[in-house]
């Protein structure tokens, strides 16, 4: 399932020599369920960390209560009381969300302070990047995310983003930084822009409770993997179910054209049976294909190369021959499960709230 794959990737964290995995959760006003997905991912990550040996910790950088320092200014001048900037959560107050350099420093300092005992890493969650982009340019926001992602003590990073609030270049910039992009789309296509009527009301209402959930994973080897399913909102959160076709769709990036680029099962079998021209010896003897994986009993030459064609002297023939050694079999699509999937990293969640301050209860 797509949602589980995301949770696994975030849980596993950054591998040695790699940047931290980064997830963009993208939605729009016609499928406004991104916040539910964000909460779900945050809860899953908290749960994964709790179940490992390290102690789960949640810290909040509160950029919601007083993002521009208005309340502090009013309190200092005695116009209002000071209590509006106090809150009961474990939160560090940000008073100038426009200064992203200071914000980055605050996140890193607080993160280091928290993991000092455990010597682990911390995760960062941002709700939401759309709010940051109201106060800063896309280049500054992208720089903040990129710096967090490349910081050696950040285990993973994810953020919420409303795609229809920004130009295409902002959306593209964030997707380039991400290793995973989760997109929430409407389950029903409504007649947008054509005015309201009693026919499209049920469809719009349906989109408030259900959505298509498509995830694009960028693997380390450059391969792209797509997964999609449906999400349903329920009283206690959201639930992910296979798409209506009855199975999880996992597909490669094949362009949609009028001719078939895929292989059927029969075509795949026939291809496997094809003997390549230089694989048979053509000397009247039964055809033997040496594929490099089994020991060659007639070989008189030591084979120390692992990945090349080489000349091989056949004791029965004075003619030159080419013995083709396959490098490897064709890798089947979608068979490359990440061998490091079972890694568990100790980490702390570091939660940056810009939109809505939410309290997580145990």
């Amino acid at each position, binding site marked *: 399932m797509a949602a589980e794959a995301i949770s696994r990737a975030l849980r596993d964290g950054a591998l040695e020599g790699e940047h931290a995995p980064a997830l963009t959760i993208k939605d729009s*006003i016609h499928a*406004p369920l991104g916040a*539910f997905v964000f909460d779900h991912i945050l809860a899953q990550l908290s749960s994964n960390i709790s179940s490992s040996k390290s102690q789960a910790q949640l810290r909040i950088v509160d950029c*919601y*209560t*007083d*993002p*521009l320092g*208005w*309340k502090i*200014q*009013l309190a200092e001048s005695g*116009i*209002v*009381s000071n209590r*509006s900037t106090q809150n009961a959560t474990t939160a560090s107050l940000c008073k100038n969300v426009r200064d992203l350099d200071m914000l980055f420093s605050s996140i890193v300092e607080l993160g280091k302070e928290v993991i000092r005992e455990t010597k682990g890493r911390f995760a960062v969650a941002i709700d939401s990047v*759309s709010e940051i982009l*109201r106060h800063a340019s896309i280049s500054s926001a992208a720089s903040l995310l990129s710096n967090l992602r490349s910081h050696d003590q950040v285990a993973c990073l994810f953020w919420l983003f*409303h795609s*229809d*609030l*920004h*130009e295409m270049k902002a959306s593209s910039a964030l997707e380039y930084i991400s290793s995973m992009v989760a997109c929430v789309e409407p389950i029903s296509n409504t007649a947008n822009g054509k*005015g*309201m*009527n*009693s026919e499209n*009301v049920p469809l*719009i*209402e349906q989109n*408030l*409770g259900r959505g298509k959930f498509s995830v694009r994973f960028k693997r380390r080897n450059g391969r792209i993997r797509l997964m999609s399913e449906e999400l349903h*909102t*329920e*009283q*206690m*959160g959201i639930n992910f179910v296979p798409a209506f076709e009855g199975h999880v769709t996992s597909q490669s990036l094949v362009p949609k054209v009028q001719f078939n680029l895929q292989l059927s099962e029969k075509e795949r079998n026939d291809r496997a049976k094809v003997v390549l021209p230089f694989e048979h010896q053509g000397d009247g003897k039964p055809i033997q294909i040496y594929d490099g994986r089994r020991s060659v009993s007639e070989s008189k030459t030591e084979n120390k190369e692992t990945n090349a064609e080489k000349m091989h002297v056949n004791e029965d023939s004075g003619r030159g021959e080419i013995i083709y050694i396959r490098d490897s079999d064709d890798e089947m699509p979608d068979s490359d499960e990440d061998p490091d999937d079972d890694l568990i990293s100790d980490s702390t969640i570091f939660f940056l709230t810009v939109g809505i*301050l939410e309290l997580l*209860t145990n």
Partner: protein
Amino acid sequence: MMSSNSANNLLDEALGFNDDGGGGGGGLLLLIEDRVETSGAFILHHLIKRRLSSPNRPNDVVVFLSFAHPFSHYDRILRKMGCNLGVQKENKRFVYYDMLNLNYPDGEKGAEDLLLSVYGKIQKTVELCSSREGYKNSTIMIDDISLMEVALCGSSNLVLDFLHYCYSLATQFDCLVIILNHEDVYSTMDVPSPLLQMEYLANIVIKAEPLATGLATDVHGQLTVLNKGICQGSGCSKGKIRNFHFRVKENCVEYFYPGSRT
């Protein structure tokens, strides 16, 4: 068919208002979108009356920021609806800020300082009310956002900052924020409009639109109430949409489902 003078009409039901005129508080932002053909001002007037007329909520306060009309305009309309705004104003239950006649400074910094000052007054008022015995909810109303943007030299970002702070006040002091904006003002924008930002921020969106069939004598338009639902500790309520027609009369408004009018 229900009129706005009955205990609870279709609009109140869609908003989740109680029979005693309360409800609809608890840190919510309500956005009213209207058009030139269908003014949404009647919704604002209806909500003013609801918030001030409940006998069970004697200490609730309405803070009203007016960019569109003078006080006398609202006083005249609400009198016809049976609500004396003058008395409410004297009793400090209706706090009216005349934003039309303020001296707006040039430049964004000056405008931000002015907004900071206005916000400070609102926060002080709400804090005072919340400390009184029997306090339930306060209401902050703005009429209207597009004129506020004009007053701030077109800075929609400042408007959104101000709304953000009002919303944070609402979540802290259990208030209801009600704003009116005009959808067709932003319809020709190529870039994402600030109206969309407000739709994301709002918990309830009411759209006043003309009928798809055009003008009619007996039906003045249709209302669509999108209630996104709320999330609390016990869980989340699902989003709902209601669509019904309305007819504005002299002293009240009638709400009815399509085809139900006799």
